[in-house]
């Protein structure tokens, strides 16, 4: 079993090696075995309730070099290797003409391997090392066309933001080691409650908390560390797909890994919630006016990562995992199929969709009805208000349904998406909570002073975003609105 895990982690690299040296057989066809393998292994760990561990050597009890596949890393790894193999297969044809294609394929395979190594690390130190490794190969991919000025600028900006993140995590590690005497995730999660409630070393724990929050912010493109992401389109499309689907969410993964630790630091989670909420707002707002597909997708990623971080900050780790996985598939597909977006232009010519805005009161009424319905439906579908962040998440779900209803010109066509949206949402929630039971922290949650304020402000943020995007033309009639439009068009970069 252990060997199989090791084989699976290196699977993309092995496939790449075989197909570049032995041309007689199309080994790429086998790449899907990796996905199946990870899927089965994840299934087994969920069934057994025990992770699969490989320990190579341990310097001491505190520093163990080894890998561990538990349900959490299993689900995310399966997603990553799925997207990885899709991207590898896509690149094969897509870059058939490229003069440096073998190097490109190698780098892609290496990047995927490093992500898998990172996800399955037992120890924060190695997690960090593999994170740096991922970043290294991603850097090479971003510089695939290194004669392009834009590519160099983007890679450089990403380089410095990533190194900042590395330093933050390094500080976290030093502080945590001082406190816990170990960097194994198992120790960090098990001892967190005891040590922190003891009140020992509040300073070091504070440092660890702050730098951890800053570290994941840089890694997951949270505002204000997002600026490099929209500039990385100077590299072949599959790299964007891999980066936006498989790499950028590592920050969220680390937060969930360190969930028990962060849960002891309400202020850290609160700040993640605020950062996430602001990032989600910012990304969505900018996306509204973007005119090219890749940049639009980049801001979409920023907003989605913000939302995921908000979920983490609210303590809703289960839903955050659902989000990481769902968004990864969605975004990888969007990038790979981005050449088809010209169909929208054709469609707009064939069928003149009325560009009229909903009447002023429509969004209010629809939104109100929808949110109330979802609020009532939630507990009925087994989602209790005691779950962390429930109010905010149900609010967003309600507004989402309202938005889908408003966006459909034929209202009856929106019924199916809305019902399936709600049903699937709660099913996935229950499935993931069941699968991760035990390995994930799902404590009951009591809103306290600060958190009420945060909940309310995030709620206001989302409601106002909802109202803005349903009144876009009305807003443009005012000067402030025009100012906002240009801010959005510029991605908040200029002026």
């Amino acid at each position, binding site marked *: 079993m252990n060997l199989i895990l090791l084989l699976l982690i290196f699977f993309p690299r092995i496939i790449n090696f075989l197909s570049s040296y032995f041309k007689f057989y199309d080994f790429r066809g086998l790449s899907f075995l990796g996905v199946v393998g990870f899927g089965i292994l994840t299934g087994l760990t969920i069934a057994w309730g025990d992770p699969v561990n490989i320990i190579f050597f341990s310097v001491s009890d505190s520093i163990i070099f080894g890998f561990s596949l538990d349900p959490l890393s299993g689900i995310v790894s399966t997603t990553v290797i799925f997207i990885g193999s899709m991207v590898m*297969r896509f*690149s*094969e*044809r*897509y*870059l058939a*003409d490229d*003069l440096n294609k073998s190097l490109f394929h190698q780098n892609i395979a290496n990047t995927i391997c490093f992500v898998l190594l990172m996800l399955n690390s037992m120890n924060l130190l190695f997690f960090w090392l593999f994170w740096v490794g991922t970043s290294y190969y991603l850097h090479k991919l971003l510089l695939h*066309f290194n004669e*392009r*000025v*834009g590519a160099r600028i983007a890679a450089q900006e990403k380089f410095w933001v990533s190194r900042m993140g590395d330093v933050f995590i390094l500080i976290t590690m030093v502080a945590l080691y001082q406190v816990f005497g170990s960097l194994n995730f198992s120790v960090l999660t098990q001892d967190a409650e005891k040590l922190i409630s003891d009140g020992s070393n509040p300073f070091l724990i504070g440092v660890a908390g702050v730098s951890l929050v800053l570290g994941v912010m840089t890694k997951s493109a949270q505002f204000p560390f997002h600026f490099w992401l929209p500039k990385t389109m*100077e590299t072949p*499309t599959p790299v964007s797909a891999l980066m936006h689907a498989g790499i950028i969410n590592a920050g969220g993964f680390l937060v969930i890994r360190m969930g028990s630790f962060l849960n002891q630091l309400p202020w850290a989670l609160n700040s993640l919630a605020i950062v996430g909420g602001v990032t*989600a707002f910012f*990304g*969505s707002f900018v996306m509204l*006016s973007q*005119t*090219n*597909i*890749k940049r639009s997708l980049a801001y979409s990623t920023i907003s*989605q990562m913000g939302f995921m971080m908000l979920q983490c900050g609210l303590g809703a780790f289960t839903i955050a995992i659902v*989000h990481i996985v*769902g968004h990864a*598939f*969605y*975004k990888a*597909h969007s990038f*790979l*199929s*981005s*050449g*088809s*977006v*010209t169909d929208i*232009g054709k*469609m*707009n010519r*064939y069928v*003149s969709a009325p560009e009229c805005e909903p009447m002023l009161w429509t969004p209010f009424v629809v939104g109100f009805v929808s949110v109330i319905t979802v609020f009532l439906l939630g507990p009925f579908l087994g989602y209790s208000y005691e779950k962390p962040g429930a109010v905010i998440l149900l609010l*967003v779900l309600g507004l*989402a*349904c*309202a*938005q*889908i209803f408003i966006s*459909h*010109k034929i209202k009856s066509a929106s019924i199916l998406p809305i019902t*399936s949206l*709600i049903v*699937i949402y709660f099913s996935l929630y229950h499935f993931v909570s069941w699968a991760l039971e035990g390995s994930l922290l799902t404590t009951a949650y009591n809103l306290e002073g600060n958190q009420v304020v945060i909940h309310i402000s995030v709620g206001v943020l*989302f409601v106002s975003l909802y109202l803005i*995007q349903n009144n*876009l033309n009305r807003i*443009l009639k005012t000067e402030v609105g025009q100012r906002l*439009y*240009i801010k959005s068009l*510029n991605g908040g970069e200029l*002026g």
Partner: protein
Amino acid sequence: MAKKVNEMPKTITLHGNNKENSYCAPQNTSLDLILERVTSRITPTWDTRDYVAVNPLFGYRNTNFLEVIDRIQKLRGTRLLPSRSYLSQKYWSQQIQDRDLTYALMLFQGLERNHDFDNLEFDQLIAFLDQKEIPSDDLEKVNCLTDLYDQENQTEETIKVTNEVSKWLAAYYDQGQSVWRLPKNPLGLYATWKNMFRFDGFTVKNNKSFVEYVKRLPNNPRKTIELIFTDLLDKLLLSEEQVEIYFERLLFTVFGWATLVKKYDFENQLFGNKLKRQDPTTLLHLIAIRLTYDVAYLNESLDFEKLANFVPIEGKAKTDMLINYIWLLADEVAVRRMIVEKMNFKHLDSSKRRPLAQMAFCIDVRSEVIRREIEKKSEEIETIGFAGFFGVPIALKKLGFDNPDHQCPVLLKPVIEVTEKSEEPEKLMRKRRAEFLKRYGLKNSQQYSHSSFSLAESFGISYAWKMLLNNLGLTKPNYEFENLADGLELDIEKISLKSKVDLAFNALFNMGLTENLGKYVIFFGHGGESANNPYQGALDCGACAGHNGRYNAEFLAKILNDENVRNELNVKGVSIPVDTHFCSGWHNTTTDELNVHKKIEDKEFKKIMNLVEDAVSKCKAERFSNLIGNKSYQLDSLKKELRARSRNWSETRPEWGLARNHSFIVGRRELTRTVDLQGRSFLHDYNERTDPDLLKLELIMTAPMIVTNWINMQYYSSTIDPEKFGTGNKVLNNVVGTIGCIQGNQSDLLTGLSEQSVRLNGNYFHEPIRLQVFIEAKTPSIDKIINKHPMVSELVSNNWLHIISIDVLHESFKLRLKNKWIDMKEALWN
């Protein structure tokens, strides 16, 4: 700022400009003339919805090819002549022979009458191949103010301004990407930009008052241009010529968008009030915007002597360019020699029996192979080459759609609108509309925040499934517009008999199908098939405005099968045999399949179809040997691979398209019937004897010849510089506004063809030469048409293409050079 600049002339030293000679303040009228000249030089490009090939230099047709090459080199920093590596490869592989080179040198000396080069030695030509390529950065350029600023300060402001203008135009012309659109001013692009610019926060170093300055400008672009002139540029003492080239340079920094603006302007003029959109935007708007940005960089430290200075190339660089041009001529001589050697006069006299079937194809070079293979299979089948819309300019409004696609050359107005019919139109219509609006709703939901979050969470996993199917080539990520409804056909009943008869008569007359009709006449339109490809239109039929030509074929076949139409045609003197049946179909150029619409259950027809099937297999093997590499494919695996290419979402080169096109042969098919032209010739049927009034020849030389020139020059320029005249590397393409592409993060709108369409492993795949037009007609007839049409005469006399007259009587060829005809064979073989 205006005030500050007003004072400027005092501080600028005038470098001894002689006012009388060089300075001519552009008066209003002369400014208008200049602007008119400048804007006429931009050729429209159509967006990806009707992506037809365009000669990007068509606006320069009234100038000699070589002069334009020089001018473009200065304006855009690229020399549009074949590279040394390509030429030496052709020379050392004996495809360009010494005799071609000698002949080219001779032609050149006769052509240019340039005595500086009288003593150009042959060795110099060969030595050219080993010299170093001049890097494009070293070429002397025409500068606008941002260029000067960049040189002064080592900045990249010109690119920055290009990206800024690109940002605004993308927002202005967005057709569906953003959900929050730029609020348009009814006065057009310029006023829209001007009113929104104040919020933009665009800054120029050392020019804090720029935003204020823009605010004070008038809303009218023409007035703005004039104002900036009288206020600022007049003081720089530019000559009229300099002003002209200055504007040209400005437009060249935003070339792609300029061509799109020109397209909208062109359509406004062509269709007038018929268009639903009323947008007064013209190129003046773009010039005004770019000019305003430019003067933001006006400051005293710039070296104004270098502003907008176009100096024709001189000295060593000139020699280098001319030798390069001679090599281009040599390549063309070699191609002409090859074609001439192949041309066959033996079959011309064979008396004509009634053929069993006639198949009409588009003149497209991709039809050449299939036509040859079909004819090889049977003497009883004739093929005909004609523009792929078969002379029926229609607009097709598909069932359930609000707006039509034009199915005719972009320079023509469709004469009628055709719709579709089916047995249950209402149901189908609802289904189609519902499907569209559903997708539209979903697409919008994905762009609004809350729904995008929840959709990603709930439906995210479904994209894994879609991705898998796409990757296996089982589905395409595209909306399959066609597949939404089966069993549809065109509805011709609503069209008046008169227009049907007129269209049918014209089509038959121009195709030469007024006599000796076979039992079956099949019209084959053509189209490509690809997935996830923004430039799908480039693979489709250019004569059908970048759409599949099957509808035109179907329409024509339908009206010709109509009893009433046949009766009327009889009155007009065209008698169609009672047993003649017209069919239609389409040639899928990506998989090389011939699809016949409504096959006839008939023994003879089946026989024909079997022959065609055989021919198709041969054709596949030939056409795709280049595409797939040297692997010898079994037919089955070849078919599989071609299907995969047409459906795979990661394919960047579904087919080679019209790459390697080199000639346009107008004449009887017998001349080329048994000849292997390697799919490189456009073939148009023409019989001099049936055209005493030269009506058909006139049509051919004013329509298909222009189109083939557009295609040829598009491939030419994209091959030589895919970055500046093509859409660059496809893996970096980024769809903008759902109607075009930019490169990477930001760039000008891309035009032309991608690197993958014209190059293979970094080397030219398309061979960049100008179009060689062979016409089987007497020289006076050709001259007559040339002299009648200024557009044709400009193209011919300025060497944008070469015309060769085929003299069947003497079995000789005459090349038109400088209004004279010279006998080719003599010069060639001596």
